[in-house]
Structure formats: structure tokens, C-alpha cells
């Protein structure tokens, strides 16, 4: 195992060097070298995950005295498996997709280096190694997004990404410096041990160390995972190659969730930080989803969809469901990667059939087929509410009798319910000829979603954090007063019920809003269609700063 852990990031590094060496003479073969490297990396990562599943104890592999520590634990092995798997798929896909592009071999070198950096990040066992990987990911992403060196637009938004990432990098660096100052070591293991022994240490200006560092780590994660106000780079970086978008949305952007999980031993000693994380995640999830719905550009819609999902993931961390966030980032990575990699196929299909639904009257009169129906409103609303309750009762019966009393378990179920409700809202809008078949599919999907959240995340919890006491500690750190918890659950239930009522009202009255409501609606729509003017604010600010710098230069006669 000692050899396997470094191999996980050394293999893609070697692959990058080999591809670089072959760059001069070989064109297509450079991709083959890279793919073989990606496959070997995936094998190494799979073996690591196998060892972790077999119950091998966590271990550190040291290459230096001060830094250069690699970590083998359930989190690193699982993340290495996911990263290398997605990287392999992207490699194979890119071989033909990028064939006509300039800088074909360079692209594979960058892809290998990015894989190596991501794997170094997930296996880093000390702060310096983590910082190096964290910084390098931003730099490599800049070059991957700017693969087309003729496109000023691609580079403009790649630079925005770089700067957002650099902002997050420096916050993480600040957190690392505070930890080093307090404990005199860069080792994550050493730091977490000392934090557990003395969680009440104070730092600069008498601030509580754990809360300050956790806040900085969270901010760094927000920059990486495109949380609101640090999100602009994500929807605007679609000029990069499709495989890069797939890798970015499926792997890189998820790093925020990983970082919070990596610092879980620190977060369990915080008081209130996780609540702020929850609020930021919630705001991001809502704004990301709203902006996604308002887009008429499919790629930007996908970007905002990722933003919403990242908000969801961060929100999960905020309620203490750390392992659920890992499950979420894997699931989201797979489905978003599939969407991006399937984009070419969708475009090709759209050339054959535009996919615009035919008018019901046309279908009935000309095609002589029965008109497609929409599912009964009341039934769909009832399913939204009944299935989670049934599963809660089942979980009470199957998993633990005190299931109702465990805030963590209810949190998991709650997320399953919210996701399931979203799913039902989406499918309700569909029209079908065979309503019973669609109903069956909806019921099945909803059950899978709720079950998935409840049971699969429980399995992730047990795997990633085998110590039950630690698991309880995480939920305790995120726990809120039972009154507020119940209020929140009731509020969310009311939001879902309100959603169904609005759907019913719209169905009955069409989309006609009257009077003040109409003005309010149009104002809101303007705000949303301009993406809350956040991008304009940033553009203004950067323009102002550059103009100020130019004036200073002129004033000081360029010296």
C-alpha cells in the first residue's frame, strides 16, 4: 500500500511527461499514451479503494520531514477512485473529440497534469502539499479553459476563474498559516490531534482559532465550489472544450465539498460556522436554480445548474451531513459529466428532430393519436408528501427504533424529500400518452431518491467516518435547537405545498398575473434575466481598478 498511494498521482505525472516527450513526432499516439496512463491510474485508485473497503487502517506515507505527506484513508481512497474514473472517461472521450483541434497533444499533457494535481489534493496529508495541489488546480484549469489560444473570450473567463480560485487559495493559505502558528506543524493528522486536545485555543486578536480557521476553509471551499458572489466564473467558462467542461463540472468544482470533509475534525469543534455554511449553501442553491430556469442558453443553464447543485452540497455540509455531501458530489459528477459528454450527441439529434412538442390538436386530428395527458395534480402532490413519510416509518422499523429522534437521519431524509419533490415538479410538466407508465416511473424514481439519500448516505457515513462518536459529533456541531429544526422542516414543507398550489393556480388560470403582482413578477424576471447584476458589478469594479491603476501610472510618469 505504501507504494500504491504515491503511484496514484505519480502515474498521471509520468504519463504527462511521456506525452510531452512524444509531443514532437506523434499526434494520435500521444492520446494513446495518456489514456494508458489514465487507465493505470484508475487501476491504482481502484486497488486503494478495495483496500479501504477491506478495512485497512488509515496510514501516512512520508516523503519529507516538513511536507510531502500522503494520506491513505477512506476519504482519499474514495475520492481518488472517483477522480481517476471520471478522468479516464474524459481521456477516452477526448481522443476523438479533440482530434481536429490545435494543440491536441498539449491538451492531453494538461489533462494528465490536472488529474495528478487533483489526486495529489485528495491524498495530501499535510497543509503544504494540499496548498500546492490546491493552487496548481487553478493554474491548470486556466490553461485547460484557454486551450483555444486564439479566443480572447475563453481566456477572459479563464482569467476570472483563475482569480476567483486564487482568492480562495490565499484564504486557505491564511488558514494554514494560522494552524502552523498555533500548533507548529503542517501535518493534518498532527493538527487534528492537537485541535481535539485543545479546541479552545485563541489566535490573532483573541479570535477563537478553530472558528477562524474553519471560516477561512469554508470561504476557500466557496470560491472553489462557485457559491453565490464567487460563482460568476462557472456559467461563463463554457468557451473551453467540452471535455474540460465535463471534468470541471464533474470533478474540479466539487473540491469544496471535499475540503470541508477533509477538515471535518476541525469543524466538529466549531460553534455556529456550519450554520453559516448552511445559509450560504441555501442561498446559492436557490439562486443557482432560479438562474438556471431563466437561461435561454443551454450551456449557461448547465453552469447555473451546477451552481445550484454545489449550493445543495454545501448546504448538506452545513447541516452536518458531510458524507452525504460526498455522495452528492459523486452523483452530481456522474450525471453532469454525462450531460456534457452527451452534448455532441444531443446537438446531432436536434438536427434530425428539433424536439419541440407538437400541438395536442395536431396530434389528435392529423396524426390520429390520443392527446397526451398531464398527471393528476392532486395525486402528484400526495405522492410528494406520502412517500417520504412511508420511508421514514420503514426506516424506523428497519434501521433503528429511535430514527425519529436522530436529527442527522431526519436531515438525510429531508434532503431526499426535497430532491424528490424537485423531481416530481419536473415530471409533472411532462405530458404523456401512457400516464400509468409515467406514474410508475415517477413513483419508482422518487422512492429511489429518498431511499438513496437515507440508506446510501448512511453507508457512506459508516465508510467515511467509521467512528460513531465522531459521526454524532459532526451532527452535534451542526445541530440546532429542536424548535428551530422543526420550524425549518415545517417551513420547507409549506414551501413545497405552496409550490403545488401555485402550479394548480397557474394551470387553472394560465400564466396571467394581474396588477401589482404582474409588475412584481416583471421586476423579478428582469433581475433574474440580468443574473442579479453580479457580473456587471464585477466588470465595473475591475474596470474601475484598472482605470485607477492607469491614472496612478500616468501621475507617477510610469516609474
Amino acid at each position, binding site marked *: 500500500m505504501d507504494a500504491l498511494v504515491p503511484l496514484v498521482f505519480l502515474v498521471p505525472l509520468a504519463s504527462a511527461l511521456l506525452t510531452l516527450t512524444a509531443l514532437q513526432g506523434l499526434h494520435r499516439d500521444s492520446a494513446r499514451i495518456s489514456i494508458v496512463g489514465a487507465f493505470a491510474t484508475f487501476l491504482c485508485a481502484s486497488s486503494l479503494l478495495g483496500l479501504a473497503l477491506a478495512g485497512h487502517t488509515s496510514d501516512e506515507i512520508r516523503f519529507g520531514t516538513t511536507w510531502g505527506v500522503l494520506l491513505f484513508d477512506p476519504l482519499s481512497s474514495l475520492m481518488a477512485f472517483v477522480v481517476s474514473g471520471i478522468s479516464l472517461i474524459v481521456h477516452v472521450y477526448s481522443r476523438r473529440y479533440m482530434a481536429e483541434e490545435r494543440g491536441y497533444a498539449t491538451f492531453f499533457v494538461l489533462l494528465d497534469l490536472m488529474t495528478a494535481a487533483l489526486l495529489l489534493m485528495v491524498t495530501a496529508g499535510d497543509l503544504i502539499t494540499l496548498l500546492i495541489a490546491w493552487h496548481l488546480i487553478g493554474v491548470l484549469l486556466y490553461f485547460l479553459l484557454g486551450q483555444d*489560444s486564439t479566443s480572447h473570450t475563453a481566456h477572459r473567463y479563464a482569467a476570472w476563474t483563475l482569480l476567483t480560485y486564487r*482568492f480562495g487559495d490565499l484564504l486557505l*493559505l*491564511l488558514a494554514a*498559516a494560522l494552524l502552523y502558528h498555533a500548533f507548529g506543524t503542517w501535518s493534518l493528522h498532527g493538527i487534528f490531534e492537537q485541535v481535539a486536545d485543545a479546541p479552545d485555543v485563541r489566535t490573532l486578536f483573541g479570535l477563537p482559532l478553530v472558528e477562524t480557521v474553519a471560516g477561512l476553509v469554508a470561504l476557500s471551499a466557496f470560491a472553489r465550489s462557485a457559491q453565490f458572489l464567487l460563482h460568476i466564473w462557472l456559467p461563463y467558462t463554457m468557451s473551453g472544450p467540452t471535455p474540460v467542461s465535463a471534468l470541471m463540472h464533474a470533478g474540479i468544482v466539487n473540491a469544496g465539498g471535499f475540503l470541508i470533509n477533509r477538515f471535518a475534525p476541525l469543524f466538529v469543534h466549531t460553534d455556529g460556522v456550519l450554520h453559516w455554511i448552511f445559509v450560504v449553501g441555501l442561498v446559492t442553491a436557490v439562486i443557482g436554480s432560479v438562474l438556471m430556469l431563466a437561461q435561454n442558453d443551454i450551456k449557461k443553464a448547465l453552469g447555473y445548474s451546477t451552481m445550484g447543485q454545489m449550493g445543495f452540497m454545501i448546504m448538506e455540509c452545513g447541516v452536518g451531513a458531510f458524507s452525504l455531501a460526498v455522495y452528492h458530489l459523486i452523483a452530481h459528477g456522474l450525471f453532469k459529466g454525462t450531460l456534457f459528454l452527451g452534448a455532441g450527441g444531443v446537438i446531432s439529434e436536434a438536427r434530425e428532430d428539433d424536439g419541440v412538442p407538437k400541438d395536442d390538436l395536431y396530434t389528435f386530428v392529423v396524426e390520429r393519436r390520443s392527446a397526451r395527458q398531464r398527471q393528476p395534480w392532486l395525486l402528484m402532490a400526495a405522492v410528494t408528501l406520502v412517500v417520504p413519510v412511508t420511508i421514514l416509518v420503514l426506516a424506523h422499523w428497519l434501521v433503528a427504533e429511535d430514527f425519529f429522534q436522530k436529527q442527522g437521519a431526519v436531515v438525510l431524509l429531508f434532503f431526499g424529500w426535497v430532491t424528490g419533490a424537485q423531481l416530481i415538479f419536473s415530471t409533472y410538466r411532462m405530458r404523456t400518452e401512457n400516464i400509468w407508465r409515467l406514474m410508475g416511473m415517477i413513483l419508482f424514481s422518487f422512492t429511489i431518491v429518498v431511499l438513496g439519500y437515507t440508506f446510501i448516505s448512511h453507508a457512506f457515513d459508516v465508510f467515511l467516518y467509521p467512528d460513531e462518536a465522531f459521526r454524532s459529533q459532526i451532527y452535534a456541531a451542526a445541530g440546532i435547537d429542536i424548535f428551530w429544526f422543526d420550524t425549518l422542516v415545517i417551513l420547507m414543507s409549506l414551501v413545497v405545498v405552496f409550490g403545488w398550489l401555485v402550479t394548480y393556480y397557474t394551470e387553472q388560470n394560465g400564466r396571467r398575473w394581474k396588477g401589482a403582482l404582474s409588475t412584481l413578477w416583471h421586476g423579478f424576471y428582469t433581475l433574474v434575466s440580468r443574473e442579479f447584476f453580479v457580473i456587471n458589478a464585477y466588470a465595473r469594479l475591475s474596470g474601475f481598478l484598472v482605470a485607477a491603476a492607469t491614472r496612478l501610472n500616468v501621475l507617477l510618469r510610469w*516609474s
Partner: protein
Amino acid sequence: MTLLGYLVVALFLPLFPISMLFNRLYARVGTLRARVFLLLVWPQLGLLVLAELPGQPPTWVVHWAVVTACFYAFRAVALRDLTLWIAYMATSAWSLLWAMALFAPGDMLLVLQALAFSAPFVLLAWLASRIELLFGAAYAGTCGGLGQTAPRLSVLLVFSILAAVGTPLFPGFFALLATTANLLPVLPGAALVMLTAWFLWAWAGAQMTRGLVVGPAADEPKPDLGLAATLPPGVLLAVLAVAGVTSLGYLT
């Protein structure tokens, strides 16, 4: 006497407004050799004088130095001329040597650090002279598209800029990391200003890269660097990265 000594050091480890002298001088000097000489020797002279002064630099000087670093990094964001950019960024980097001097375990390490800071600028000065030969001026925006026209030259340019703005694995990254860790508990305000300067370096670097490398190829084909000309600077960058990984003994 000590004050006079610090004034002399402030000329070579630039503190604003004395720093303006170096920038004027660098812009005036026309030959590559003279520019390389300036870039290599200027901070070393400062360190030489600083070593002769008793005690450590006072904290107000360190504050002044980090503000100078931030000031020049900010001004570099708006620059389009690569030669001026080199001078501003070098000024910004060298002024941080004041803060590093507070914690460096030995004078030799500081000398090596100053060299590691200067090396990417030396490379950039050489590349700027090549671009001037090709286009008449090394000016972002007007001679863009180097990525298409001269790929080898642009690869070297990009890596040199990365080294100059403190990207891992180059020594600047490790030096700044160690300095932040040491400076933060003593002078937290100065550490935060230094981090701001670091952020602005990245911005300035991205602006310059975009202006020079990105864009369609030039109408007339321009000769790229040959393999023989690419190799020595490439090796120098690799040596810098190795020096960075070994951290020059900073992170202990």
C-alpha cells in the same frame, strides 16, 4: 548613520518613492545585458548593505515595504508594456525581501531567495528583447497571438510569468508561504497586505499573458525560437522548480 543605511537599502530593496529611481533606470537602459545585470545585481546590493546594518529592520519599514509591493503589483495590472511590467513586478517582489529578512535563518538564504526572485525576470527580459526583435515592441495587445505565431517562445513566456507571480512549485511560492506563516503572528496587517500583493500578481500575470499569447496569428509569419535557444531557459525554469521543491530550507 543607520537611517542613511536604510535609505541606501531602500534604493536597492525598493521602497516607494525611492523605488521610482530603479524603474526610471530600467526603462532608460536599452541593452539586454544591462537589464540582466540590473535585475541580478540590484537586490543583492541591497542585501549586502542590509547585512551590515545592526539589528533587524524596524517594523514600520516592513509595513512600508509590503505596501510598496502591493502598490506596484496594483499598478502592474494596468500595464501593457512587458519591459515596464518586469520593472514593476521586480520592484514589488524585491520589496518583500524586507519582510523575509526578518525571519530568514541566514544571509545566504536571503541571497538565494533574491536570486530566485530575479531569475524569472531575467528570463522575461530576454524574452521581451526577442519579442521586440520580432514585432518592434513587447506590447500586450499589439503583438498578441504569440501562442500561434511562436509557440516555443510563448511557452517560455508563460512559465516565466508563472514563476514570477509565485506559482507552485517555483521558489516564490514557498518563500511567500513561509513569510506569511512567520509574519502573520507578528505583523498580521503586513501579512494581509502581502497576500493582497500576491493576488494582484496573479491578476497582472493573467493580463499580460492574455495580451501577448492569446489571439489570432500575426499576418506575416515570424520565426519562433529554435530548440537550441529554448533549452537553456527551459533548464533554468526546471532548476528553479527543483529549488522551490527543496524549499531553499525555508519551510522548517
